[in-house]
């Protein structure tokens, strides 16, 4: 990825999470992988100021407790979290899943290949793209907050 912040992975399946970890290692992607098992755990992580915000979020859709679409609804309504690019990584080829997630302005929808070699190739392309693309700086205040702070300061 373009910077060394962690990648947040929302995945309820431990084997699938291990496959992602293995692929990242094979591709020499140095970003730490933070794995949570569902949307609820992801929100706890993201709202904890003691934890480093991720550079990107990779999310599965079918998860217990809070699924991927429910998570996106919350994250994309949050001024700070909405900036983090969220990429769906799923086995679902369902048209509704695709339309609903694009409506929530996801930054990619990757159907996971079952074949490991093809999966590594997919992750290689995801990494290439998010190394080419700039990423939002989480440490910085949002443009709106900054504007408000400036206005307040002038009073």
């Amino acid at each position: 990825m373009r910077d060394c912040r962690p990648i947040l992975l929302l995945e309820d399946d431990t084997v699938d999470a291990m496959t992602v970890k293995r692929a990242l290692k094979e591709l020499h992607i140095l970003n730490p992988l933070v794995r949570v098992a569902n949307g609820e755990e992801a929100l706890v992580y993201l709202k904890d100021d003691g934890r480093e915000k991720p550079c990107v979020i990779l999310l599965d859709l079918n998860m217990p407790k809070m699924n991927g679409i429910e998570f996106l609804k919350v994250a994309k309504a949050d001024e700070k979290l909405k900036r983090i690019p969220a990429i769906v990584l799923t086995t679902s080829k369902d048209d509704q899943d695709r339309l609903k997630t694009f409506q929530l302005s996801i930054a990619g929808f990757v159907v996971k290949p079952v074949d490991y070699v093809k999966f590594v190739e997919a992750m290689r392309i995801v990494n290439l793209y998010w190394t080419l693309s700039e990423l939002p700086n989480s440490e910085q205040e949002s443009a709106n907050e900054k504007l408000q702070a400036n206005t307040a300061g002038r009073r």
Partner: protein
Amino acid sequence: MKSSKPILLVEDDNVDAMTVRRAMKDLNVPNGIIHQLDGEDALEYLRSSDNKRPCVILLDLNMPRMNGIDFLKIIKNDDELKKIPVIVMTTSKDERDKMESFEFSVAGYIIKSTDYKKFVEALKILNLYWTLSELPYPGA
């Protein structure tokens, strides 16, 4: 791209638009390119039901009449248009531009290289990624 729908390019500079066309041709990207000169023209295109929905939007930021950020404000509040992935393609390295764009959940922010070879390489990666990724409007 994953879909054969056209790419909507919003760019006020005709020379830059030609460079994009040339690079896409060099990369054998089969998608057609629809070029609009600013946000207002792009909106007009998107709002006419006779026109094909684009698979992705490549968006410059500094444009007269309606700039890229103002364009994002409008389409990201439109239930139908908000689905289309928008990739910013600009020479601006301004932190504020970047921040505002990501606040509108852009699906990429690429700083245009002035070197043609590097620019082609960037578009190659962009095309690879959006061929791997599904798109909201598949099919022809």
